[in-house]
Every structure is written in C-alpha cells, then in structure tokens.
C-alpha cells in the first residue's frame, strides 16, 4: 500500500519530523481557504500516486489568490498519467538554501534494512543511484537492534551534510527508520528534505509504502487505504475486489494461469509465438470453481482481448475444479465472446478434461500448443 503525500506527511509530523504547514482541498474554494491558513506564496500539489508530478503539471507554486484559483481549477479534475486528481494539498512554500535526500528501504540482497542519505536531494534519486552511487551514503541495519543513533550520524557525516544541521538530519533519519519499522514500511523517503536559511530542516515531500502482507496489524493504515482509494484502472480495481494478482498489458491475448512463474512463462510464450499478451492474471493456489469463473469474467471485461488461454498446472489447484469454473462461466453466455483455449495438467487434470465442455473451449495437450492456438485465434479475431 502506498500512502498519499498528505497521509505520509501526517504520519511523519505525528512522529516529530518537521513538515510545512498544509491543508487538503477538493474544490477551488476549499483551496482558497486552505491558502489563507498556510499563507502565500504556497504550492498546489495534486494528490495522486505517480512519480514526476511536477514535470507532468501536477504541482504549481502560486503567489496570490488569483494565481491559486487558476492553478486549483486546472489541477483539480485533471488526468495525471492516467489517474484522476480529485484532491490537492495546499502547502506553505519553504524558502530553502539546500536540499537533501533521506530514505529507508529493504535491501533484499542483504536481507536487511538500509538507510540512505544524500546531499543530491530534490532530484530523481534513482538516477543519482545509477550514475553516481557514491553520492549516496548507506548504512545497513541489524533488524534485531534497529538503527543505532551513531549509524545515523555516520551516514549523515559521510554524505557530507553540513555540520551545523547534521545532528538534526540524523534525528530525522532515526525517526524515519522507527516509523518504517513500526508501520511495516517497505520504503520511506523524504526528497527533498529542505534546509532553510535559518538552518532548520523541513520535509517538503513524504513517501511511505507499506507491506500489504503486514496490514493486518495496522488498522489505522487500513483506514487510510480506504480513505485514499480514489480509483485508477477499472479492471485493476475489479481484480483487487476479486483478490487476483492482475496486471493489464497492451496486447490482445488474455492469459489466465496458476502461479506467478507459470503465468509469466505463458506471457513470454505468447510473445515468443508472435502474439501479444493482454494481461497477467494469476488465480493463485487451490482455486475453486467460482474463482475461475471470476477470472474469466475479468478477462472478458477487457475489450482488447481477442482470445483467452487458460494454463493450469495443478498441484494444490485441482483440474476438476478449474474445469467446473470454466464451464459455469461459459455456459452463462448465449454466445461466447472470444475463443478460449484450455491446457490442464497435474492434479486431477484427467477428471478435469472429462468435465470440460469441449463445445465451448478448445483443449490442447501442451503449454506450447495451447499458446500457439490462442495466438492464431487472436490473429483471426483481430
């Protein structure tokens, strides 16, 4: 789960990280009221979860009410990289002399958390990491002990942060780590962390991503997720409701399978045989008939789909259950929207083959032949 900027800032501020004065607004009038509260000049920032909001026109700095109205009118309701903007954060403009980057993430290669500090703040930090990795100071953290204050200081000093703000920056870093740890974060970042002419540090942006698998122990974050949910791709939302791992792609061969690796392999084979995958859909392990029906419903809802390939290798998933689900889904149509190819192997595959209504689907014996057939159908339909 990704927190919105305003949510992350609230969480950071509660923990004692200094943040600019700000208020949320969903109409132009609310934005004017918010600006009166935080004062001019201020920034109007679209609250959508995409990178590069500034470049895409989702952030604007304004000096007075006229400019603010103009900006709010333009930003509220705009489409930003495919996402609808329905709220903006109106935020005090901070007069800064320097920008830093601080972050915490899990280093999967090491299997432990890592904290990072850089004086190259305010820019695309991933680009810095790639082009000039020495510009980012790193400290690995023993998850049993947490981040020791000396480690935070060591990172800050070795990044070359000015001595007169170093202690304050180190304190922000230890707070950020504690938050990341308490909230089951996957990434927590402040970019930029601004240094003002009075040598104060202020978090001008806030990123907090939380491990979905750990949400069960954070009811407060679950509430934020519901509150922050303002939509996105309709099909991906539907997949969320059904509880599928689903990714929409740009091709026309719909793909359903069990197990992430096998579904990815099916995508790759569609490409290999000259087709183009429309989606990734993993029904997961042990799926019952209803889940299979829902999966077909999902894929048929995508108007780009010209054919569907079902690739099931049963282990914990049973072929007979899958076959029942396919039948149920297809028998509900007067006319089947697009051709469906099925390949069943593994647990109860033979029982499944007997159950499958072969008037409604094409059965193939191997992964390769199933994919090839689906690609051919897609070409014919397209």
């Amino acid at each position: 789960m990704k927190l919105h900027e305003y949510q992350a800032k609230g969480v950071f501020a509660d923990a004692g990280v200094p943040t600019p004065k700000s208020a949320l607004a969903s109409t132009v009038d609310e934005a004017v009221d918010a600006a009166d509260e935080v004062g001019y000049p201020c920034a109007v920032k679209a609250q959508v979860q995409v990178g590069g909001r500034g470049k895409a026109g989702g952030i604007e700095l304004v000096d007075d009410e006229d400019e603010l109205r103009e900006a709010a009118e333009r930003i509220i309701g705009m489409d930003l990289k495919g996402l609808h903007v329905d709220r903006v954060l109106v935020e005090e403009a901070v007069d800064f002399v320097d920008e830093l980057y601080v972050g915490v993430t899990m280093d999967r290669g090491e299997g432990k958390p890592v904290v990072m500090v850089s004086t190259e703040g305010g820019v695309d930090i991933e680009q810095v990491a790639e082009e000039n990795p020495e510009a980012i100071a790193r400290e690995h953290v023993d998850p049993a002990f947490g981040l020791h204050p000396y480690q935070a200081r060591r990172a800050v000093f070795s990044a070359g942060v000015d001595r007169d703000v170093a202690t304050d920056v180190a304190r922000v870093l230890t707070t950020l780590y504690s938050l990341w740890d308490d909230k089951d974060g996957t990434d927590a970042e402040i970019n930029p962390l601004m240094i003002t002419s009075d040598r104060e540090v202020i978090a001008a942006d806030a990123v907090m991503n939380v491990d979905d698998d750990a949400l069960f122990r954070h009811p407060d974050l679950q509430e934020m997720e519901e509150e922050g949910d303002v939509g996105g791709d309709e099909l991906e939302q539907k997949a969320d409701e059904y509880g599928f791992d689903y990714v929409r792609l740009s091709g026309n061969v719909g793909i359903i399978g069990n197990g992430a690796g096998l579904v990815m392999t099916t995508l790759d084979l569609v490409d290999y045989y000259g087709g183009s995958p429309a989606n990734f859909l993993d029904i997961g392990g042990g799926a019952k008939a209803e889940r299979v029906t829902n999966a077909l419903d999902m894929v048929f809802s995508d108007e780009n789909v010209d054919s569907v390939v079902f690739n099931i290798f049963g282990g914990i998933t049973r072929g007979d259950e899958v076959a029942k689900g396919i039948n149920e889904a297809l028998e509900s149509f007067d006319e089947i929207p697009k051709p469906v190819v099925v390949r069943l192997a593994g647990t109860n595959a033979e029982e499944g083959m007997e159950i499958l209504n072969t008037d409604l689907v094409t059965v193939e014996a191997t992964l390769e032949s199933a994919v090839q057939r689906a690609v051919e159908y897609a070409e014919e339909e397209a």
Partner: protein
Amino acid sequence: MSILVDDDTRVVVQGITGGEGKFHTGQMMEYGTNVVAGAVPGRGGQEVEGVPVYDTVSEAAREEDANASVIFVPPAFAGDAMFEALDSPVDLAVAITEGVPQQDMAKVYRRLGETDTYLVGPNCPGLITPGAAKLGILPGNIFSEGDVGLVSRSGTLTYQVVDSLTKRGIGQTTAVGIGGDPIIGTDFVDALELFENDPDTKAVVMCGEIGGEDEEEAADYIAEYMDTPVAGFIAGRTAPPGKRMGHAGAIVSGSGTGTAESKIEALNDAGVPVGDTPEEVADAVEEFI
C-alpha cells in the same frame, strides 16, 4: 543420493491441525515421507493422521527424533514458527506459508545466519527427493527418480519443467522450490552448492524470474565453482517495468538490473544455456546427460 532430504528425514509438521496442514500431512505420508510428529500450541496429546501432536517443536523433535520441520502456519504467526524451528533445533525447516511480512522475514533471516539449519521458503512449494520423501505441497506423481537436480523460484513452473523432463525419461535427484519472496532462506547459490557436492546429480536445472539479483549471483557462482552442467530458464521476459507480477520479488525496476535480459546474459556468460521455452530447457538437459 540427493540433497537436504532422503529416506532418513524425520518430519514434524507445524500447523498440522489446520486444513492445509492436515491434508498435506496425508499427502506427504502417502508419498512415503516419515512424518513423525505435529506441533501446534495447545493441541499436545492429540493425533492427526495417526501422528502424535506436541505443543512445541522442541518437544516433538526430542520425543520423536525429528530433524526437519514443514511449516503450514498462517502468515501472522509464520515468522514465529520459523524462529521456533530454528531454535528447536532442526536441520531443515520448510516454510510453505505465503504472505509472510517482509520485516518478520528479515528478523528470521538474521537469526538463520547464527544457525546451521537450512530454511527453504517461505512462500514455496517445498522440496522432493523422488522415491524417498517430499516436504511440502508438490504433486508427487509428476516426479521420477534420476540424476538431475532442480532449483526454482516458482512452484508451478517447477512442475512444468519437471513434467517435460519426466516425459523424456529424465528423472530427478531432488527438486527444490525456493520461493519467490524478496527475502528467502535457501537461495540459488546454496542449492547449487549442495547439488555440486552431490555425486549423483549429473546436471542441474535452474528456473529463475525477473526481479532482484539472485540469478546474477548464481551465474557468478556457477562460473567460479561448478563442474556440474547447469541449464536455465528465466520467466518474465515480457513483463513491463514497474509492475509487480504476482511474486513479491518479480518486479523490474526501470534501471536495467533484475531484468530477464540481464539474468539471461549473466547465465550465458557463465556457460549456462537458457531456454526460450520450458521444452528447450529439457532439450539442453538431454544433451548434458
């Protein structure tokens, strides 16, 4: 011969009274695995599938001489269950549970470094030495005894590749599903080292996927230390950057690391043929043996 499990492995099932635990205990026993005990707090003294249940893993290990554990415990408690297995101690712990919080896993991984135990998983199908024992949820009937080792980040992809091998009469020493999470116990390098040291393993198949740098590290290991030939497969060539494809680890950052291309290139440089399809992997193995 085999790696990690054989006829002598004595298994305790953590979470044996749950639906999955009970069902797969039956399946494992039917395959011939020595399941000697279950461990579920508060259920000591009961029996499941004729197997005695203890309150703690250490008691089960002591009373029944168990040396391996299979974990079918819900995600919220799986981290604790892994700690319990490591502290019992057993030689091998296999965590099937999917959805273990990453920070729990970081703590387990840190503890793992202080022990001699092999941990396989979490979020994995387990492992099998055909004809001897299976620990986990793999369908036993597709495997056959032979001399090819297999290590994979994905369960169903393992089945797909094994099926191709078995149909050509190529059997397996041991097949290990290491799981697709970002932090796992036994990784490619650990499994490859065990296969390299197993005199009966004549060739190895390694199935990887996009995300992380484990395959690149494995390629370095193969180039430097392995005499046993390895054939590879990498899933996710068509995955778009920035999207997560099911497995927590199967995400490609935009920066070129962790992509299928970088993994395939690293493996090719290490002398590992990488198949475009699972059948091509089986072709490569056929040439090795």
